[in-house]
C-alpha cells in the first residue's frame, strides 16, 4: 500500500495546559486535507483548548503542532466572538477584510475583488445585507458574514468553535453546504460540535476528547458506536495504553 501523503496539520505528542492545569496530553494525530473533522467531548474536555493551541494563542507545554498551511490562510471563528459589534462597519466591509493576505494594510481593492465579494454574499444569501452595520445583524447573519470573510481569505485551514450556536436553521443549511464545498476544494476544517445530527451531516472524521486524551475515529464508526462504547471511549480508565488521571 502506498504511504499516504502527510496531512498539512499534524499534532505530535502535544501537551496543552490552561495555567498550571494540564488539559490535554500525549495527543498524536493528523487532520486530513480536504476533510471536515468534528471535535467532540464534554464541557471542559479541551475542545476550545485544542483550537487555541492550533491557532497559536496557547503555547504547548510539550510536543508540537506541525502546520504547513501559511498563517495568512488560517481562519478562526471563536465561540465567544472577539468581534466588537458596535464598531461602525458594514457586512461588505467585513468581507473585504478577507483580502488581507493579498492586499495587506495598504493596497486598494479593485473591481474584481468587489465582484468576488458580491459573489460570496450571494452564495451566503446575504446580498441584501451588504450595507447593513454589523451591530444590526442576527446571530445567523453574523455567522454568514464571518464565513464570507474566510471565503474571501481563501482559508485553507478553518477552525470553527460551535459555529451553529445561536444560529437559525436556514443558516445552518447554508453553512453546511458552504463548509462542505470548502473541504471539497482541499481546505482542512476543524469544527467543535455538540449536535449529533449536524455531526452526521457535516463530519468526515471525529476526534473525541476525554480524560485529557484525544481519540481519532471516522464519522461512520462514531455514529455506529453504542452508548456503552461511547462511555467506554470517554472514560480515561478504559482507554488502552493510558494511565488513569
Amino acid at each position, binding site marked *: 500500500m502506498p504511504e499516504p501523503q502527510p496531512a498539512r496539520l499534524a499534532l505530535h505528542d502535544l501537551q496543552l495546559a490552561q495555567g498550571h492545569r494540564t488539559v490535554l496530553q500525549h495527543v498524536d494525530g493528523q487532520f486530513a486535507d480536504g476533510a471536515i473533522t468534528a471535535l467532540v467531548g464534554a464541557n471542559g474536555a479541551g475542545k476550545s483548548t485544542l483550537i487555541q493551541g492550533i491557532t497559536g494563542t496557547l503555547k504547548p507545554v510539550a510536543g508540537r503542532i506541525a502546520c504547513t498551511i501559511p498563517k495568512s490562510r488560517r481562519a478562526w471563528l471563536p465561540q465567544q466572538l*472577539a468581534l*466588537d459589534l458596535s464598531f*461602525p462597519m*458594514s457586512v461588505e466591509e*467585513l468581507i473585504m*477584510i478577507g483580502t488581507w493576505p493579498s492586499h495587506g*494594510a495598504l493596497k486598494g481593492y479593485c473591481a474584481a475583488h468587489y465582484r468576488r465579494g458580491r459573489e460570496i454574499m450571494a452564495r451566503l444569501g446575504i446580498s441584501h445585507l451588504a*450595507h447593513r452595520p454589523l451591530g444590526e445583524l442576527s446571530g445567523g447573519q453574523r455567522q454568514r458574514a464571518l464565513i464570507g470573510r474566510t471565503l474571501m481569505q481563501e482559508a485553507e485551514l478553518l477552525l470553527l468553535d460551535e459555529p451553529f450556536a445561536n444560529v437559525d436553521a436556514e443558516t445552518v443549511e447554508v453553512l453546511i453546504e458552504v463548509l462542505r464545498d470548502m473541504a471539497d476544494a482541499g481546505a482542512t476544517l476543524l469544527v467543535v460540535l455538540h449536535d449529533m445530527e449536524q455531526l452526521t451531516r457535516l463530519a468526515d472524521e471525529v476526534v473525541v476528547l476525554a480524560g485529557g486524551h484525544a481519540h481519532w475515529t471516522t464519522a461512520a464508526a462514531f455514529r455506529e458506536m453504542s452508548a456503552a462504547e461511547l462511555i467506554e471511549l470517554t472514560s480515561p480508565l478504559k482507554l488502552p495504553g493510558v494511565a488513569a488521571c
Partner: protein
Amino acid sequence: MLATLFASLHEWLIAPFDYGFMRRAMVAGLALSLAAPPMGVFLVLRGMSLIGDAMAHAILPGVALGFLLAGFSLPAMSLGGVLSGLLVAVLAGSVSQMSGQREDAAMASFFLISLAAGVMIISLGGSSVDLTHVLFGSILAVNSTALLLIAAISSLIVVTLAVIFRALVVECLDPLFLRGQGVRGSLVHGVFLGLVVLNLTAGFQTLGTLMAVGLMMLPATAARFWSKRLEGLIGVAIALAMVASTGGLLLSYHLSIPSGPAIILLAGVGYILSALFGRHHSLTARLRRRAAPLGAPEPH
C-alpha cells in the same frame, strides 16, 4: 439693506483676519482640526475616551522640563512633551502587561504622577503666568515657527493614520484576525497612542495641554449622533472641529474672551446640540422614531 448685511458679515467674519496673528491662529486651528478628530473617533470607538485626557496630563512634565531648560522655546517644549507622553504610554503599557492590571488603571496612576511632577517642575522654575500658559495655551500668540511645527505634526499624523488605517480598523474590530495575518496588534496600538501624544503636543501651544484634548474628543463624541459609518464619523468630526476652532477664534476676537476656552466651549455647544437634534440616538431622534415598512429597499 443687502449691502449693510454684507458689510456687517464682512466685519464679523472676514475683517478680523486682516491681522496676521488671527490668520496664523486660524490656520493652526484648521490644521489641528484636520488631525485631532480622527484620533478622537478611534479613541471613542475603542472605548478609550478618557485616555486622551490621561495622555494630556502625561505630556505636562516634559513640556515643563523643556521650558526650564530652554526657556520659552516651542521646539524644546514640544520635544519634551512628546518624550514624556511616550514614556508614560510605554510605562503604563508594560506595567499593565506585567501585572495583568487593566491598561486604564496603570494609565490613571501614571498620569496623576505626571501631572503632579509637571506642576512641581513649573512652580520650581517659573511663575504662575507660565503655568497658565502651558495649561491653557494661547492660540493668538502662535508665531510662524509654531505654525510650521503644528502644520508639520498635523501632516505627519494624517499621513501616518492613512498608512495604518486599515490595520487600525481591523485591530479594533477583530484583533485575532490581524494576529493571524502576522501583524502585531500591540504595534498598531502603540503607533496609534504615539499619534495621540504627537497630536496633543501640537495642540498644547494653541489650546494648552488640558484643552487640546477637547478638539480631539468633543467633535468625535458629537459625530456619533450624526453618522453610523466610520468615514461619516471622521468627516463630521473634522467639520465640527473646523467650525468650532474658527468660530471660537472669532468669538474670542469680538467678545474679548480667551480663545482656547472659546473654541472648546463652541465644540461643546456642538456636542450638546448634536445630542439634542442629531440623526441617531439623539433626543429628537428618539421622539421621532420611525421605521421603514417591510420590504422597503435598504438605505445605503
